[in-house]
Structures are given as C-alpha cells and as structure tokens.
C-alpha cells in the first residue's frame, strides 16, 4: 500500500511534462495550423482554396471570390485575422518603450484608441507596419504581418515592460461592410454605436470579454474583434446568427485584398520588402519611400531609425516613392513595369486591379525618384496580359493619384447607419 501511494504521484509528475512535451512536438505532423475559428471556416470552405498565412491554413476564397468581395462592399464580410502576429506589451514603461520602437507618438494614443504605425531598424529601414491598440494606460497590443520578438525584446532592455507573443492565444475577426454595425447591434453588443473610427472597447461575451475596435483593412465601415481562443467559436456563431438577415458572409483573402487596394493600403512583403527579410539591400525602404512618412514624429524624441531618417530627408537620399496610379483602360497592371516616356524604366506596380467601387483601373507602384515625386507626367505602364497562351502587350498611360482610391462616408459616419 505504502509503496503504491509513493509510486503514483511520482509517475504523474514524470508523465505530465512528458505528455505536454509530446503534444508540443506534434506540430511537424500538421504543417499548417488551424485558427481558433477553423471548424467554422472549414464547414464553409466550398472551394477548398487555401494558402499559407504565417503557418496557418487560410482561405483564398470560400465559395466565390467575386461575391465575397461584394459582401464587403454591400453587406457584411467576416474575415479571420487570427494568423496576424500579436504581441502583448505591458508595463509602466510601455508607452515610452513603444515611442522608442515605433514612428508615431504613442503619448497621443489614448487608452481605448488604435493607430496604424510602423517601425524601423537603426538604419531607418521599415521592419514592418501594423496596428497598435492601447488597451489601458499601461497595456498595448501590437499586430503585424511579420514576427519581431527579438527586435522588441532587445529594444525593451532597461525598460519596465514585458513583451509577450500571443498570436495563438488570441483569435481575431474582421467584420467589414455597410451592415457590420447593424450586425454588432443585432448581436447584442450594447454601446457599440459609441465607437468612432479607431476607437476600441471591451464588451462582454460568453462569460468573458471581446475587444471590439472600429478598424479594418477595407476602407469601409468595419470592426475588428479580438477574443481569447477558447471563446472564438461562440463569437463566430453569435455574429453569424445575428448577421443572417444582414447578409453576413465569411470571406477569404482574395476579396479582402481587393478591398484593401481600393482603400490604398499597403501590405508588407507584397508592396514593400521588410528589412529583416530583404536579401538584396537595395530593396530596403524608409518610411518616406513607401508612403508612411506621415507617421514620423520628429518632435517626440528618439526612436529607432530617427537619425537615419532625418539624414535621408535633409541630404535628399530618399530614392523611392510609393504612389497610387490610375491607369487607362480596364486591364489590371499587376507587376507591370512603369516607364517614363514609354522607354525609361522608372518603377514597378506591386498591386493592381480594376476597381468596381471607383470604376477605375488602379494600382500601387514603387517609383524611383524624382518620378512619382516631382515628375509625374508622361508615365506609362506596360501590361503583359496573358490571353490563351499569348501575351497581349499594352502600353497604357498612368496618372499619379491620391490614395485612397475610394472614400466612403459610411466608414467614419457617427453613429454608423443602420443598413
């Protein structure tokens, strides 16, 4: 008896960590993780058209990429953003720390607010862009495309701040489109009408809370919802049930990518190469070279890359500029070369589409200054359109235009309309 009682706890002690270890090892069997919403998405995935988003199995489309796009613009679209990298940054020095890391003045970001920002290495090259959520005076969430833990931890040395990667622990949904507000109201999120653009607040959900912000990547009325992974499915169900009569649809990335291009928003490692991934050093970009110069706050004190950015500005060492283009015709100019006077190569289109909202052929392009900066006349793009195994080569006039390509009043209307 005595033997058995001694033995039993000993065995449990050894097995428990071993089991946890075995469980952690098994990731090599599933190369693409599912998100906390995966069971619901799998059930809706009729096209079975997946891509790899940061190690997650994410849908390009679920049933029809055209109609998914129109769900964003005419109804409400639900898009799973869980694979986005999320860091929880907390501590009495969190504000000062983030002011040192990122470009914008975090002191101006009040608790309950979100801003779009970017961060650079010491040479002033952009490491990534992302959204910074101020959840309390001392607690933030930083969302980004790439991973930055070593960079953040190294920058935190000497600060009263903890940085924790919480990508897997937190599920995220983007609910975007004209009826998105109505869906949230119908789902019982009382007080959501108070959220102005870039506001965030916590709402009760399923015995816990969900953080809802009036943010998004579509240029439309929309919200983003962050929820602990274990409450993810109940949140999905709550929205889908409430949204049934409001035309809610789950969507994949292709539709979202169109909406973001109309909104004139850039995507890291699609429209520019992030500094920690650029093998070729001439691909590195400063904020001023990818349209993020507006974020730079030279008054707030030192931040990573400040000296280099300032020097590049004063010595006119900025070599590139990212612009919006409007191209004649309706053939998308994806990855087309941009020419000056139809002959001199001056840049490349990184994203392009015919915009159903703007009814225009639009594009984002990186140009070599002064083209796109002070020289904006006589620009052309050469479109190679593959049609039944033949390139139809088109030389089309391109005009530099302001971004966003579309501006929707409903995005910022207060309170949002009940569509």
């Amino acid at each position: 008896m005595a033997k058995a009682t001694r033995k039993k706890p000993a065995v449990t002690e050894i097995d428990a960590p071993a089991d946890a270890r075995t469980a952690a090892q098994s990731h090599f069997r599933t190369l693409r993780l599912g998100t906390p919403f995966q069971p619901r998405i799998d059930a809706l995935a009729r096209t079975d058209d997946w891509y790899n988003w940061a190690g997650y199995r994410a849908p390009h489309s679920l049933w029809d990429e055209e109609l998914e796009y129109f769900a964003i613009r005419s109804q409400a679209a639900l898009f799973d953003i869980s694979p986005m990298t999320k860091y929880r940054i907390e501590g009495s020095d969190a504000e000062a720390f983030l002011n040192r890391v990122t470009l914008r003045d975090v002191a101006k970001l009040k608790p309950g607010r979100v801003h779009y920002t970017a961060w650079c290495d010491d040479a002033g090259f952009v490491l990534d862009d992302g959204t910074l959520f101020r959840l309390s005076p001392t607690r933030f969430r930083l969302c980004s495309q790439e991973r930055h833990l070593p960079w953040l931890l190294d920058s935190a040395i000497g600060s009263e701040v903890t940085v924790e990667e919480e990508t897997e622990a937190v599920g995220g949904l983007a609910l975007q489109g004209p009826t998105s507000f109505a869906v949230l109201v119908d789902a019982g999120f009382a007080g959501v009408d108070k959220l102005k653009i870039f506001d965030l607040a916590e709402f009760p959900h399923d015995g816990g809370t969900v953080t809802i912000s009036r943010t998004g990547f579509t240029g439309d009325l929309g919200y983003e919802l962050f929820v602990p992974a274990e409450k993810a499915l109940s949140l999905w169900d709550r929205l889908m049930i409430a949204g049934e009569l409001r035309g809610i649809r789950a969507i994949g990335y292709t539709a979202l990518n169109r909406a973001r291009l109309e909104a004139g928003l850039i995507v890291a490692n699609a429209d520019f190469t992030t500094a920690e991934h650029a093998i070729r050093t001439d691909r590195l970009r400063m904020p001023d070279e990818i349209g993020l110069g507006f974020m730079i706050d030279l008054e707030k004190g030192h931040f990573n890359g400040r000296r280099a950015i300032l020097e590049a500005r004063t010595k006119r060492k900025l070599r590139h500029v990212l612009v919006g283009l409007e191209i004649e015709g309706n053939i998308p100019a994806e990855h087309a070369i941009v020419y000056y006077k139809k002959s001199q190569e001056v840049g490349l289109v990184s994203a392009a589409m015919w915009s159903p909202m703007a009814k225009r052929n639009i594009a984002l392009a990186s140009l070599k200054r002064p083209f796109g900066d002070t020289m904006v006349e006589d620009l052309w793009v050469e479109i190679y359109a593959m049609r039944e195994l033949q390139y139809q080569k088109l030389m089309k006039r391109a005009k530099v235009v302001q971004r966003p390509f579309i501006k929707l009043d409903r995005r910022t209307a207060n309170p949002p309309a009940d569509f």
Partner: protein
Amino acid sequence: MKAWDAIVIGGGHNGLVNACYLQRAGLDVLVVEKNDWVGGAATSRELTPGFLYSNCSYVCSLFRPEIMRDLELPRFGLQVISYEGGAVFTRDGDYLANYRDHDAHRREFARFSKRDAEAYDRYARDVTRQCRFIQPLLMRTAPDPTSFRPRDLGELLYLGKKFAGLSAEEMALTLRFWTMSISDFLDEYFETDVIKANFALSGIIGTALGPMSPGTAYVLLHHYMGEVDGSVGAWGYARGGMGAVTKALAASFKASGGTIRTGAEVDHVLVSRGKAKGVALAGGEDIYGKLVVSNADVKRTFLKLVEEKELPDIFLRRVRNFKIRGSSGKVNIALDSLPEFPALPKDSPAYRGDMHFTDSMERMERAYDDWKAGRWSADPFLDMVIPTTLDPTMAPPGKHFMSCFVQYAPPKIAGADWTDADRDGFAESVISQIAEYSPGFRDRIVHMEVRTPREIEAEVGLTEGNIFQGELTFDQLLFNRPVPGYAQYRSPLSGLYMCGSSTHPGGGVMGAPGRNAAAEILRDLAKSTSHMSPAHDVI
C-alpha cells in the same frame, strides 16, 4: 613510347571532374588511382555482404550543378535524394528538430525559445546574403593580387566591385563572418544553447577548430552554399551512396574516351629540367605525359610526390606550414534493423536526416579540448545519418547503413601513432554515445568500419585524414589557397597542376577545384573552354 596529353594523379571526385573536362576538350587523359577502385573520399564500398558504405563523405549538397550538367552526370546515373532536416537530441530526453517547412521550423524552435524562433529569419537573411556574395567566386579562379596581368586585374576588380557593392553593414558583416568564431556569430542571433549547438556544427565539421575558435563562422557558410536540384541549402543522399557521384564521373569520363588505371600508385612525379614529364608508379613503371595534374592534397603532392630539390624553398616552407590537420574520423555501421530513439516520435522526419547528440556549445568546445590534448573526444560530436531510410539500394530490405562522422580525432594520440587499441577506444566513445539515446543499439550492429585519421590517410591518401585537404580558414582561402602565388592551380614546376580540395574554393564534394583547374590548364594550352558552363547567375 606513348605520352599522354595529361595524367591525373588520383581518382577522387576532383581528379575525375578535371579529367572529364580535359578529355572533353580533346586531350588524351589518363587517371592513375592507387586503390583498386576510384572515388577517393566519395566512394560506396560493400564492406560486408549486402551493405554499401558511404565510408568517407556521406551527404551531398555542394556539388556544383553546372558540373553535373556539363558532364551529364544524371545520364550516367547520379541521383540525389534530398532529406528533410534532422535533430539534436538533448540530455533531458527531448530533441530539437530542423524541418524544411519554415513555420514548422519556427514552432519547433519556439518549444525552446519563442525569441530564438523569431530570430531565425534575421539569421537566415544574413547568412543568405553572405552566401550570395561568395557563391559566384566558387567557379572562378582566384585572382593573384600581386600580378598585373589583365585577367588578374579584371578578377581583382570583380572582387573589389562585389565587395564595394555591399552596404557598409554587409561589409562589416562579411569581414566578421570570415574571421569570427561560430559561437560569437550565433550569439548575435540566438540565446538558447541547444539552438546554437544545432547551427554551430556546420562551423566545425572537418575543422581542427572548436566553435569558439575564430574563423569557424566561414566554415558554416561553406556548408550553406549547396543545393539539391535547385533547392538551395538542401542536403541529400546520393542514391547508391556517395560512390554514385564518382561512379557517374568515371562513366562520363570513359564515355568520352578517357582511360582509368586503378591499382596504380604514383611513387613520384617525373621531372626534367623543371618540367613535369609524367609519373613513376610504385611498381617501377614510368608513364609519360605532357602535363601532370595532382588530385592529391598539396602536402602529399609536393612533400611526397615531388623531390624537394625541384621546388623553391619558400614555396616548400609554406606547403609544410599549410594547415591540414586531422580532426575527424568515421564510424560506419551496418545494422540489422532501424535503431529506435525513444525521444523522437516514430514518424519524425528527423530519422531520415542528420542526427546529433551535442546539445550545448560547451560540450562541443570540450570535445575540442580533448583534440588539443592529443586525445579523441571522450564525448564526441557526431553527425549521424541513416541514408537507407531514403535509399533502399544500400542495404538489404529492413536493414540499414548508418554513417557517423565523428569529431574530434587528432592525427596522433599524445604524439604517437594511432594503435588498434586506440581505434577501438575511439569507436567505443561513439557507440556508447549512440546507445545512451538508443536502447538496444549495440545488438543491432552487424558490421562496423572504424576510420581514424590513420585509416583515412592510409586508404584515401588525405594527409592527416583532413577531409577538406586543408582548413577552410581565411588565411587559407581565395588567393592564399593553398599558398600565396600558387592559387591558380599551377605549381612552381611547369606542367604540374593541382586540382584537389587544397585549392580554391576548398573541400567538400563540390567539384569546383577540379573544374577550375581544367579551365586554367586549357587556357595554358590555348584550348577552348566552351564545353564548360560558367557559374550560374546569382540574381
């Protein structure tokens, strides 16, 4: 009496590559090989019935695809099967695996450190940048910086331009890379010991240096420059063992009309009035040739095969001082079943890749301490593979061949030659390490071949058993390899060339030295090199 257009001493992979290119240029080429088989250190030998042993080199990645194409090696049977990663076993019963999938790799690292998992991208970026800088140099003759010949100036300019094309940060990194220790280098990216140990092994393989010795960072780079059929950085098994590489080369050579004589050990190079005239075989036979190319390492070539009086003093002194130190051995094992490693899930791809047991930088450095003291490492560093998990042609069904590369093994034991008892002690250090992680391992052993530097030198002819024919430290690279002034495959003797790994760009089953030497020889003969593909572009 027949005089061959060229006689190549040694049928290793570089000798055969060289011979192939010369033969295809229209020369009448003879390869003389002391063993009864060709292959040098790239062989597959049936040392026990039914089992093929890759008993020296054991994995393939560095072999230049341009050479494979020129010499039609796939047509002559060469096939490389890439493997899927590997693992380092940790002493607490776990392991750290490397996976080909980027995200699986990150999640695996995150089991040990989330920070280090996310540091990998920056590390990969920096290593890739350096590889891209060096890779184009592999297939070019290093310029002679003291020469004013237009070609040397042109090549120097090319090097200078490449270097000047780097950003200030990259230049600094390049210089650091070529001089610093792999341990210091990894400290800049990672903080977890097992993760550093996992990467550090590529920095010390084949090198008589420890992970904390300056210069080992470059050795890591050398191992990252390869590919398997376009998959950059990948490693694989040659189907049929590493002998498949030289078998294909020999077949290609013969198909183009070349002649190979095995069992023909060269005693010395015939020299007359400062010019190589041929070779004298150990049996007493003289074979004449218009030129002689040595695949043997620089020490063997100039300290054993050529009489001292024929060579300048300074050259000889530098050859004597060339660092070609024995540092490793091999234990090749035939197994009657696949060993089990309880720490590793049964379906882990690591079984098919390279496995290691050294989970800390300190253990690695301590293993090197033994080498300095003239002992084999009590706790050696192993690079262990079981190629039969992917290549069924090397062992009977259900049975396996295991190759263990073992470091460190000094060229002499406390100043004295290796004895059979030493060799057995060395083998025991290896077997006991494996058995610690694989219960019942000893019972699976059917046959075993143990090769200390003594055996490797005696059979393959590599001085001190050094697998690279000379250390890959910066003082022995580019225009300093093997010795200053003689980095362009020529020697002080007219008509005597070098084509082995002692020459630029160095060791590994790469073929580049053999190819580059052929290009220089053909240039001297004013023959076309149009059958030689230039290095693939790095864009």
